[in-house]
């Protein structure tokens, strides 16, 4: 029985009103056909290509164009983008707010990227904060967080989180020795900070729909950091225990909130970490291959049970 036949039946049975039937039958036939996704992708690709060309042109021709012209153009673009966003934005709300227009989110994104290009240009030409360059990243992250929350924009929130990660990373780059261990610790601090900040903001009801972005980034950074600790030959026991704890938490969260990406993180990162410990002392192909068969089957059985109990369709 085709969907159109089913819809007709539901109309006859009184489950659907004639208006609903007309709408849904049309939608199932692609009438009207929404180009929402295509238009958004065109805008995203366009912004990305434009800023790539802008950065490339500025970097290549900055001497010929001159600082004044470059900064004037970049500042004008920045001002135009932010003027548009601030003048057209609806009033702020802690809840999810729809964009006033299709171009709105992308102009904000363009403005944020142009800000980054201009800031990089200023610092590298005039060395305003030469010894404290990390402050640029922190300030940029702060600005992007403000814009993301003011205009409810996931693109800019991702930029803010990656700028903040860059700030943590650059701080690490100043450490003269033990970079791996230090980097790992900073990555953990970053992921805990981001996760905690997202949770607090969600609890306070400030754009709670953005919490998923925080949590996914925090989880991946945390797992990478813990795995790198597990892979190290010394003092890996603590990292291993921390990885197990993180996997258990991720699994519990994923099942509780029906967010199966976290179940997948727990399964994959956990399997890689546990395997890296267990196969260290395995010698011989037979034992190694047997390990993968046995543990693979065990994982498969566990995941099928989870899928049967919790993960239908979604």
């Amino acid at each position, binding site marked *: 029985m085709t969907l159109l036949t089913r819809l007709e039946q539901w109309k006859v049975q009184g489950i659907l009103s004639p208006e609903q039937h007309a709408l849904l039958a049309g939608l199932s036939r692609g009438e009207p056909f929404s180009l*929402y996704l295509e238009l958004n992708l065109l805008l995203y690709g*366009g912004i990305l*290509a434009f800023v790539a060309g802008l950065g490339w042109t500025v970097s290549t021709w900055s001497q010929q164009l001159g600082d004044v012209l470059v900064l004037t153009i970049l500042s004008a673009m920045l001002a135009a983008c932010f003027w548009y966003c601030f003048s057209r934005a609806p009033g702020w709300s802690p809840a999810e707010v729809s964009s006033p227009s299709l171009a709105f989110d992308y102009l904000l994104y363009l403005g944020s990227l142009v800000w980054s290009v201009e800031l*990089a240009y200023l610092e590298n030409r005039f060395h305003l904060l030469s010894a404290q360059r990390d402050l640029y990243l922190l300030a940029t992250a702060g600005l992007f967080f403000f814009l993301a929350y003011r205009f409810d924009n996931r693109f800019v929130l991702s930029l803010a989180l990656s700028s903040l990660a860059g700030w943590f990373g*650059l701080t690490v780059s100043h450490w003269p020795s033990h970079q791996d261990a230090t980097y790992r610790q900073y990555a953990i601090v970053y992921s805990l900070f981001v996760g905690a900040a997202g949770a607090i903001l969600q609890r306070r009801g400030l754009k709670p729909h953005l919490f998923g972005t925080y949590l*996914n980034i925090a989880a991946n950074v945390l797992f990478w950091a813990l795995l790198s600790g597990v892979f190290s030959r010394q003092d890996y026991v603590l990292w291993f225990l921390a990885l197990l704890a993180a996997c258990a938490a991720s699994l519990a969260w994923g099942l509780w909130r029906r967010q199966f990406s976290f179940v997948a993180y727990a399964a994959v990162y956990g399997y890689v970490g546990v395997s890296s410990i267990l196969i260290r002392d395995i010698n011989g192909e*037979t034992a190694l291959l047997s390990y*993968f068969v046995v543990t693979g089957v065990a994982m498969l059985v566990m995941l099928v049970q989870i*899928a049967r109990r919790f993960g239908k369709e979604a």
Partner: protein
Amino acid sequence: MRVYSAASEEAVRARDLLKDWAGEGFLTQAQYQSMEQETVCDLRRTNIFLRIVLFLFTLIILGAAAALFFVVFLSPPSAQTTSVFLLIFAAMTYGAAEFAVSRFRLYRYGIEEALDACSVGFLCVGIQAALSSGTDFLVPAAGVIASLWIWHRFGLPYAFLAAMIFVIWLSGYWTSSHSAQHVAVAALYAAGLITVAAVRSPHRFTYLNKGYSIVEALLWLGIYLAINLNLSSVDLLRQWWVGPLTTTEFPRTFYWATWVLIWCFPPAILARGVRRKDRFVIAVGAIAAILTLVTNKPYLGWQRHTWDPMLLGALLIGVALLLRRWLAAGPGGIRHGFTAPRLSDKDKHWMNVGSAALGLVSTRAITPSPQTVTPDVHFGGGDSGGGGATSDF
């Protein structure tokens, strides 16, 4: 011939659409629950994340089990013995996929998909091990046939993509001429396209339409990539970063004929997609149009300029905004059956996921290496986030 019944797959499609419409507010919760009960089907599905993980672990098990068999029982095996057992494994994994579907009613569950993928892999490696030189073409030929069968039987679109890749491999055995290889691949894809276009017409409003749509889009893309010599050349990286392709690698007439064709194909694909209201074909038409603009200069042997991406970006933004404005000006925001507002909850979901992910990766993408660098000016980076704010001049 399909392993799933039409009623089951139609019910799956109905359930997906009902969920989508309920999410978008076109149905009340009571209506949704009532209608969902009437679309119950026996197929067992799971969500995308568990599907991917199940696929990966099934691959690990099958790969390790096959290797273990050879290590334990046949070490060191002769080529012929290896071949025979790999062919047996191929048959066993395929049989297991059929069993998993018929007994456990798995549908896009990861496990049966990995079993299918391994059956093709074992088959190709098994044939490769058995063959002497001169009959190597049987490997991709078997790959094409097996992949097409799995696409037909299980409806997995990526099996069709695998078959298309095997066709490229196959063309290398027919002729050493690069031009002839391009033509052969494009001709085979075109034959497939004609067949699919003829077969899909009666299924426009059934569950089969989406699968045929993906396959048609893949074939259009395959033909385009086969004729665009600046994309399908094996030496792609060199020509993009070192210099454009020279016309001497191909006969002059052939080279310029393909240049004409790369300008003809995008509007043709777009027209086909728009006429049929086919999302995947429209997407391929747009991708082909962008690729034509991007590869036009290398085709003509012209030098790229640093502002070329800006012009492309401005064009894309302009097209999107004009299209949006044009659609919105129609009665009810609809023109020729097209509209700009979102009508599907899935679109919102994908935009949310995509915007978070793309926002993270874009910081690297926006700052390519300069084409020509003056001695005291260097602008790299953006490698620590912040959209290039950490770059060095």
